[in-house]
C-alpha cells in the first residue's frame, strides 16, 4: 500500500482502536489515563491527516485523487459496494480540520471532564465519534459515507445523553437522533435513487457520469438532489429540522463544541460539496438549498437575539452559520462553503470552549442572566471569547470576515440580490446577538456572587489558546497564504475555479462594486456589534417590543407547531393503533374463536349422556342413509 493508502486508513482506524480499547478496559484505568489515550489516538489521526495532506500535495494536481479499496463489503446482484476510502484534496483538507479540532477538544476535555466519574465512557464515545466523522469525510462511496453519517448520529445521541440520569438530557438525545433520522429517510432514498440511476454509489463515478446520466434540470436529478438534501437538513439542523440542536446543548460543552458546532453538523454541507456534480444537474434543488440556508440563517440569528442561555445562543448561532454555508453551496460556491465551514469550525469551537471555561468556573451555570462582570475574574477566558466574537461577527482581519465576505460576494455575483440582502441582514444580527452574549456574560456588574471563580487549568487553556490563534489567522491563511480554492480545484473542477476566493469574485464584479459590497457588509457587522454594545453595556437605548420579543422567544412558535402538528398526532396515532390492535384485529380473531365456542356450546346439548338417546341417533342416522340409498334416482 502506498503512503496515501496507509495514512487514509490510519486516520479513522486510530480513534476506532481507541474506542475498542477504552470501551473494553477504559473503565478500570486510573484518573485521566483514558483521556490521554483518547487524545493520543486523535493526535495520531491528526498526524496521519497532515501526512496525507502533504503526500497528496506532493503529487501533481490531477493525480491527487486516490481510491483505497480495503475489501468487498456488500455485494448482491449488480450491486457491489467495496469498502472504499477516497483521498482527494477535499477529504484531506476536511480530515485535517476534523482531526485537528478534534484533538484540541479532546485535550480540553481531559480538564473539563476531570471531575466526572464516567470519563472513560465519555472518551470512548468521543473516539467513536472521531472515527465515524473521519470515515464520513474519507468515504469513497455513499454507503461508506452512510456508516460515518449514522455513526456520528449515534455518538451525538450518546454524548447528548451522556448525563443520562438527567431526564432532559436523555430526552434531548432521543430527539436529536429521531429528528436527524427523519432527514436520513430522505438520504437513504436518495442513495437508492442514485443506485438506480448510476448503478453504483461511488463518488468518482457519480462525478464522472452525472452529466451523462442526468439531464440538466430533469425531474430525476432534482428528486435525487432534494432527497439527499433532506438528509443534510436533518444532520445540519436547518429549517425545519433544526429543533434538535438547541436541546442538544444538554450534553457536555466540549461535545457541543466538537459535534454540534465544528464537525458533525457540517456533514450536510460536506455531502453536498462531495456530490456537487450531481447538484449542478439540478438548478432548482440548488435554489432550494440556497433559500433554505438563507432563511435558516436569518431565522436562527433572530432566535439567538432573545435567548438567555449562553450555550443556546451559540447553538442558534451555529444553525445560522450553517445557513450561510448552505447559502454558499446553494449558489454553487463550493469552495466558499468549505472555507466558511473551516473558519466556523475554529471560531465556533473557540466560543464553545470559552463558554465551557465559564461554566467550569461557575459550576455548570449557563444562564446569562446570572452572569455578568466575569471579565474581571476570568480575563483570559473573556479575551478568548472576545476573539471568537469578532471572528464570528466578521470583523477584518479575523477568520470569519474572509469566509463570510466570500459567500456574500458569491451570492451577489450569482445574481441573487435578495439572498444577499438576507445574508447581509443576518450579518448585522450576528454582530448584535453575539455582542449581547459577551456583554451579559463578561461585562457590566456581577449579577450574582459566584464563589471560587477561577480560570481554567492549563490543559483546558492551551487548546483554547490554539483555537484563538486559528480563529484569528486562518482566514488570512486560507485566503492568501495557502489558498483553499485552488487546492480544492482537482475535486471541484470548474466549480472551484468559479469561486477562487475573493480574487475571482473581484474579477467577476467590477472592482468598485466589490469594494462597496465589502464596506457595506463590514459596516453592517460592526453596526450590529456597536448597537449590541450600546443596548446591553451602556443601556443607551431602551425600548420594549413585547410582541416581537414574545414571538422571538418562542422561535416563531415552530417548536409548538411541531408538537401540535407532528409529535402529538404521532403519539395519538400510535396509541390509536395499539387500541385497534387489541380492540379490532384481535377482537375479530377472538370473535371467530367465540363463534366456534358458541356453536360448540349449542351442539353439546345433544350430548346429554343418555346411552339410549345416542342409540336412537344411530338408528335415525342409519335410517337416513338407508333412505338416501333407496330413494336416490
Amino acid at each position: 500500500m502506498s503512503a496515501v493508502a496507509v495514512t487514509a486508513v490510519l486516520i479513522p482506524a486510530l480513534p476506532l482502536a481507541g474506542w475498542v480499547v477504552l470501551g473494553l478496559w477504559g473503565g478500570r484505568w486510573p484518573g485521566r489515563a483514558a483521556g490521554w489515550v483518547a487524545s493520543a489516538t486523535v493526535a495520531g489521526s491528526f498526524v496521519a491527516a497532515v501526512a496525507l495532506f502533504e503526500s497528496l500535495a506532493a503529487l501533481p494536481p490531477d493525480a491527487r485523487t486516490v481510491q483505497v479499496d480495503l475489501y468487498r463489503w456488500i455485494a448482491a446482484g449488480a450491486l457491489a459496494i467495496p469498502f472504499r476510502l477516497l483521498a482527494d484534496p477535499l477529504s484531506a483538507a476536511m480530515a485535517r480540520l476534523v482531526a485537528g479540532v478534534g484533538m484540541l477538544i479532546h485535550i480540553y476535555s481531559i480538564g473539563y471532564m476531570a471531575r466526572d466519574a464516567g470519563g472513560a465512557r465519555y472518551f470512548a464515545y468521543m473516539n467513536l465519534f472521531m472515527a465515524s466523522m473521519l470515515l464520513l469525510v474519507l468515504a469513497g462511496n455513499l454507503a461508506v459515507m452512510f456508516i460515518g453519517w449514522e455513526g456520528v448520529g449515534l455518538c451525538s445521541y450518546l454524548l447528548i445523553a451522556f448525563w443520562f440520569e438527567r431526564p432532559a438530557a436523555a430526552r434531548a438525545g432521543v430527539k436529536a437522533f429521531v429528528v436527524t433520522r427523519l432527514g436520513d429517510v430522505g438520504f437513504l432514498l436518495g442513495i437508492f435513487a442514485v443506485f438506480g440511476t448510476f448503478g453504483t454509489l461511488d463518488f468518482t463515478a457519480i462525478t464522472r457520469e452525472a452529466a451523462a446520466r442526468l439531464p440538466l434540470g430533469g425531474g430525476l436529478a432534482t428528486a435525487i438532489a432534494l432527497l439527499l438534501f433532506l438528509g443534510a437538513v436533518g444532520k445540519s439542523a436547518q429549517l425545519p429540522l433544526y429543533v434538535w440542536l438547541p436541546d442538544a446543548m444538554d450534553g457536555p460543552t466540549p461535545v457541543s463544541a466538537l459535534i454540534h458546532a465544528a464537525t458533525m453538523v457540517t456533514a450536510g454541507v460536506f455531502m453536498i460539496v462531495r456530490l456537487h456534480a450531481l447538484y449542478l444537474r439540478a438548478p432548482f434543488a440548488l435554489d432550494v438549498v440556497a433559500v433554505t440556508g438563507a432563511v435558516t440563517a436569518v431565522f436562527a440569528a433572530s432566535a439567538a437575539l432573545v435567548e438567555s442561555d449562553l450555550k443556546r445562543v451559540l447553538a442558534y448561532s451555529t444553525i445560522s452559520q450553517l445557513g450561510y454555508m448552505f447559502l454558499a453551496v446553494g449558489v454553487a460556491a463550493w469552495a466558499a462553503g468549505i472555507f466558511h465551514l473551516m473558519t466556523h469550525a475554529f471560531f465556533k469551537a473557540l466560543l464553545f470552549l470559552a463558554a465551557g471555561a465559564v461554566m467550569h468556573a461557575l459550576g455548570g451555570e449557563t444562564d446569562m442572566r446570572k452572569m455578568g462582570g466575569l471579565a474581571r475574574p476570568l480575563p483570559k477566558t473573556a479575551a478568548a471569547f472576545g476573539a471568537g466574537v469578532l471572528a464570528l461577527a466578521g470583523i477584518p482581519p479575523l477568520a470569519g470576515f474572509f469566509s463570510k465576505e466570500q459567500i456574500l460576494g458569491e451570492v451577489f455575483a450569482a445574481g441573487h440580490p435578495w439572498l444577499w440582502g438576507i445574508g447581509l441582514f443576518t450579518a448585522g444580527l450576528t454582530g448584535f446577538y453575539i455582542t449581547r452574549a459577551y456583554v451579559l456574560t463578561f461585562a457590566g456588574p456581577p449579577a450574582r456572587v459566584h464563589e471560587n471563580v477561577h480560570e481554567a487549568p492549563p490543559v483546558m487553556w492551551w487548546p483554547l489558546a490554539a483555537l484563538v490563534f486559528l480563529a484569528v489567522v486562518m482566514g488570512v491563511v486560507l485566503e492568501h497564504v495557502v489558498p483553499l480554492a485552488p487546492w480544492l480545484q482537482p475535486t471541484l473542477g470548474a466549480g472551484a475555479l468559479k469561486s477562487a476566493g475573493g480574487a475571482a469574485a473581484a474579477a467577476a464584479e467590477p472592482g468598485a462594486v466589490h469594494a462597496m459590497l465589502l464596506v457595506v457588509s463590514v459596516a453592517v457587522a460592526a453596526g450590529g456589534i456597536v448597537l449590541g454594545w450600546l443596548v446591553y453595556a451602556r443601556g443607551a437605548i431602551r425600548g420594549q417590543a413585547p410582541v416581537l420579543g414574545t414571538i422571538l422567544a418562542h422561535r416563531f412558535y415552530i417548536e409548538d407547531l411541531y408538537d401540535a402538528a407532528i409529535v402529538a398526532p404521532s403519539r395519538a396515532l400510535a396509541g390509536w393503533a395499539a387500541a385497534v390492535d387489541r380492540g379490532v384485529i384481535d377482537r375479530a380473531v377472538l370473535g371467530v374463536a367465540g363463534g366456534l365456542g358458541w356453536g360448540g356450546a349449542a351442539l353439546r346439548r345433544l350430548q346429554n349422556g343418555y346411552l339410549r338417546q345416542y342409540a336412537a341417533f344411530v338408528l335415525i342416522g342409519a335410517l337416513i342413509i338407508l333412505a338416501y340409498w333407496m330413494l336416490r334416482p
Partner: protein
Amino acid sequence: MTVPAPYYLALSAVLFTAGTAGVLLRRSALIVFMSVELMLNAVNLSLITFARLHGSVDGQVLVFFVLVVAAAEVVVGLAIIVDVFRSRETVDVDDADALRG
C-alpha cells in the same frame, strides 16, 4: 324341504328390530347388553343366509369375526357393568350420564 331364504331374512329382521327396541327402550344395562347380542346374532343370521344363497363362504367367515368380537365385547362389557354396579349400586343406563356434554 328347505326353508326359503326370505324366511330367514324375515326372522333376522324381526330379531334385529327386537334387539334395537331393547337397546332403545330398556334401562337395565344387562338387558341392553343382551339386546345388543340379539342384534349381532340377527346380523349373523342374515350373513349366513346370504352366504348360503350365493354359495360363498365369505359370509360365514365374517360371522366368525363377529362372534369373536362379540365374545370380546361380552368380556369387556360385563366387566364394565360389574364395575359400574360396584361403584354406583345400579345398572340403570340413564344414571350413568357422567359424559353429558
